[in-house]
């Protein structure tokens, strides 16, 4: 349950961190910039909970919820992939910013973190290619976070309910929002 809770927190925290950057960019008058320019380096916790072991979910088979067992293990892997994608995004963005610093013609910082600039010749081609690569990764990351955060929440609630029924009062009480009992 704790590891599963941690999976949800990682995903939800990352999702909110990215969304906040869009809001902040708009508030700072940088709403016209490309998404990759608005979303600066993502502060993602390097913490990764231990892998959920089969021994921790084996009771789900006995509880006739084998599909939930699959979902529990799958969602952890999916969120780990998103975490890895956010680190990759940080690395690629840092590379692009460095490239812009070295090749821009009239670049300017928007607020110290967000940047814009113009390029010509080969530099323009490379910058455009790298921007598209970054946009693509950011798009995948945001899509994944939207889907997987909701999925992590669904799996968490289903796991909690199943464990409570299976262990009949031996399962600790977790106060969850949307949980009518608490």
């Amino acid at each position, binding site marked *: 349950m704790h590891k599963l809770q941690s999976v949800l927190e990682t995903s*939800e*925290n990352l999702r*909110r961190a990215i969304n906040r950057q869009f809001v902040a960019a708009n508030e700072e008058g940088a709403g016209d910039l490309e998404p990759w320019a608005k979303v600066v380096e993502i502060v993602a916790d390097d913490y990764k909970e231990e892998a959920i072991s089969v021994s921790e979910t084996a009771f789900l088979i006995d509880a006739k919820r084998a599909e939930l067992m699959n979902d529990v293990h799958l969602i952890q892997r999916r969120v780990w992939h998103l975490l890895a994608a956010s680190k990759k995004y940080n690395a690629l963005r840092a590379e692009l910013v460095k490239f812009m610093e070295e090749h821009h013609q009239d670049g300017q910082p928007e607020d110290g973190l967000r940047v814009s600039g113009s390029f010509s010749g080969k530099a323009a081609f490379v910058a455009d290619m790298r921007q598209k690569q970054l946009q693509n990764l950011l798009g995948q990351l945001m899509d994944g976070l939207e889907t997987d955060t909701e999925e992590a929440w669904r799996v968490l609630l289903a796991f909690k309910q199943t464990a409570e029924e299976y262990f009949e009062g*031996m399962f*600790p009480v977790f106060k*969850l929002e949307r949980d009518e009992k*608490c």
Partner: protein
Amino acid sequence: MLTLLCPCCGVQADETELAPGGEAHLKRYGPGSTDDDFEGYLFMRENPRGVHFERWRHANGCGKWFLAARDTVTLEVYGTYSAQTTEPPEHIKEAITAKHPGWSWREFA
């Protein structure tokens, strides 16, 4: 050394047998909650000088989770109780009140 009575198996366990699990009685927020609620749950913790409620696991014993009320200054333990509760039992609240009249911790007092 901190020792806690495991309410699940009845063993008076010293801290080498126990694993801390952070603050007790948290309310967890997920998708759809406000940013303030989510961040409050995820990042904000009590750090009192005095009465505190914590989650512990009898890791090298019965393996079960339980909750404990203790004093972070004196290490006095006011009691341990089942993790299947949403608030501290009355006898523990009374034990705390005897030592700290007017105490409060989150929504409990």
